[in-house]
């Protein structure tokens, strides 16, 4: 909480990092038991690439001698069980929600040139690998009637969100800005209408619609009329930058 207060006047990126840091600091705000459990088991799991869909697919595709495969499956299964079961995906970071939204100022984003050069290391949104955050984003996407224009990501009055095309950039920071600032041709600004924590959840969900998050964090079908293939059953799209709306 304290450090967030100071962060109020930082710019967006440092704030994102700060939020990430909070993820690892979270345990200090969490009950002791969690602290023990998490630090002993997942304290080190901060690498953002501990799960790589491509590797999983290649593994599934590979057909070496059966015994090798059995052995490797068993091994991978155990690793998968321990790591994938893990931390980042299964957190319920309620306190980070407070943290991420403890900021009244508008994020100052790098001036965005569609399809242009990209900063060296793309920032990661707080909830990008967090199944709960993504699911919250999905809930808010309906609650705040984003579907009114984007029709569950299929596109209507607004552009589709589940395809490969990114008009204003596919990086979390871009999506964040799109939501907070709005865009020409109809995307309204939600500044001061949606708290930043929830914007980040929406960002994570928007990413998940075209498979830009770990497959095991993807949402599945909702308890409502089926409108399209559930997120976790879609093919992951390779982002394509297009300037034109």
């Amino acid at each position, binding site marked *: 909480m304290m450090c967030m207060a100071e962060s109020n006047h930082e710019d967006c990126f440092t704030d994102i990092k700060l939020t990430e840091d909070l993820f690892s600091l979270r345990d200090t705000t*969490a009950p002791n*038991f*969690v602290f023990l459990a998490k630090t002993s088991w997942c304290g080190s799991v901060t690498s953002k690439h501990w799960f790589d869909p491509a590797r999983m697919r290649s593994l599934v595709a590979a057909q070496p001698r059966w015994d090798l495969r059995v052995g490797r499956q068993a091994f991978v299964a155990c690793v998968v069980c321990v790591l994938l*079961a893990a931390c980042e995906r*299964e957190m319920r970071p309620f306190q980070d929600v407070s943290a991420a939204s403890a900021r009244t100022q508008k994020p100052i984003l790098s001036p965005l040139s569609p399809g242009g050069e990209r900063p060296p290391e793309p920032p990661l949104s707080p909830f990008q690998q967090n*199944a709960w955050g993504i699911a919250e984003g999905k809930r808010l996407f309906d609650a705040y009637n984003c579907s009114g224009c984007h029709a569950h990501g299929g596109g209507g009055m607004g552009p589709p969100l589940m395809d490969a095309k990114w008009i204003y950039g596919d990086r979390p920071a871009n999506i964040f800005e799109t939501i907070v600032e709005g865009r020409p041709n109809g995307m309204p600004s939600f500044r001061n209408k949606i708290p930043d924590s929830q914007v980040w959840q929406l960002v994570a969900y928007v990413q998940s619609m075209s498979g830009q998050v770990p497959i095991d964090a993807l949402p599945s079908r909702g308890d409502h009329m089926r409108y399209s293939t559930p997120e976790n059953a879609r093919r992951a799209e390779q982002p394509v930058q297009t300037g034109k709306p």
Partner: protein
Amino acid sequence: MPTEGPRARPVERLERPLDENAETRLHRELERTWYVPRGVVGWLSVVDHRTVGKRYIATAFGFFIFAGILAALMRIQLAVPDNHFLGPDLYNQIFTTHGTMMMFLFAVPVMEALGVYLVPLMVGARNIAFPRLNAYSYYLFLFGGLMLTTTMLVNSAPDAGWFSYVPLAGPDYTPGKRSDFWAQMITFTEVSALAVAVELVATIFKCRAPGMTLNRLPLFVWSMLVTSFMVIFSMPAVVTSSTFLLLDRLVGTHFYNPAEGGDALLWQHLFWFFGHPEVYIIFVPALGIISSIITTFTQRPVFGYTALAMSVVTTGFLGFAVWVHHMFATGLPQLGLSYFTAASIVISIPTGVQIFCWIASLWRGRPRYPAPMLFVLGFFAIFIVGGLSGVTLASIPFDLQVHDTYYVVAHFHYVLIGGAVFPLIGGIYYWFPKMTGRMTDDALGKLNFWVLFVGFNLTFFPMHILGFQGMPRRIYTYPSEMGWGTLNLLASGGAVLLVVGGVLFVYNVVRSYVAGEVAADNPWNADTLEWGTASPPPVYNFLHIPIVEGRNALWDRSVDAPVVTGIRSDCREVLITEVLDAAPSNKTEFPGPSIWPFLASVVTTAFFIGSIFTPWALPVSVIPIAVTLIGWFWPKSPEKDAPGARKSTELREARA
């Protein structure tokens, strides 16, 4: 059989018993034949029912301790109002894992494990039927349990309750993989439980010693038989429902989605159609333990054998007719509900009959009170409370108030701990000499009983009143104004005693295992066959397959008890008898140790866990699974039963 001509019949005759040397030679050869392999690979290849059974029991108690620790954490959290020791997220994971583990990884498996160890000995067989399947089911159980334990440790344990009601446990409201781990844990444990059930039924029906007709079956075996049938008929329901859940979450099917023609109540019907028999699957074996212990420590045949056996069977049937009494508050049609009230009340009649029969046995007998007996007597004091509160729960109006309150928590802990865990611990104290060849410390055992007894009632009796005061289940905290603090504190205090009792039990068992006094073959002068062999039993269980002459096999046997002869001792040949009269029918050879069941279980585990994350796990693991199974069932070099093979039998030994 057309080509076999008239069936060969066993020959009864008089002959001189084997002399010392012949007995020794027979013993040596049987030990060579039924060897338990050594070394790492050997250790994983064991198929012998005593070893597997002991591992099964130990593993189940391991999960019991883990889930007990979780319970202690819950009691700390609830000890005072507005406690911040555990957050809601962690508390939900903990109570879910506690319930799941106790039901699926302790209660059911430990009872079946006891059956795996005892039933073959009690019916006079040399191993359990389908021994390799037995090893396989143990490893599946172990891996499934380890999976759930791991998820608890990495903060991704299921958090939707041990009953995993949809839609809360469904794809929309439990993001991540928590519910999927729960559902797959079900698959693991059910597959293994079903396999063991089939083995037990086959063993009880076809591997009994000659003379052990069905109406001479020990009551423990009766209850294991009923339990196995209940497992066979109830568990498919929960496998089905958890498969639906997994499919809903992984590939977006709509079984539980009302908006697309699915139904949320469907889950409750399927789950409770399993879930209520489940309670009896846990309770019925305990009835068998109680009958055995009472028979032994009153030194009289139990009173009303037929009544006891028949009421166990009746309970088994009625157990399937009452599931909806878990759903009285869902607004189902009134008429149907009243039927389930009737059924739920009727089911208490056979239990009542059993209790009266046992009281009659105690009345008639000459009771002795070592630790095992104390636990059984504690069962009476505790279980009857739970049974009666169960009767009150069957009344719809009353249930509408106490349903999902702490009254129910109190009720089923009285039923399950009083009805199953106390007899079970008693049973462990009772059979410990047979399993390990060492006595437990009886004084410590008695202390253990009193600590557990007091601690239990202190913990769970106040919960009845908390229920009346309106405290709902599964809340991670409660405001102090509700006035629930005192009783919760009392309950948490009792929990401390329960922990102490648990520690005493473990200490007693471990200490007796390493340093207990050596046990005689039949230290309690009990009546069932397992006490008729050495403690611990030799690898082949019985030197000569006995011929049973009465209901209380050891008490009723004549001076020179007749035995079976003519069973080959140079291969794992066993006698197969008829279902009803246990008349010798034929002989068959049991498979020996093999690593394949272990490999198969590893591959299956990889498949189950993989399918939590991707549907591709199925096509990928089909081939390895097929390979391991083929390797498992591939016949070994068949010279044993090829014509002209050397036939060395006890008969030849005798003639030698």
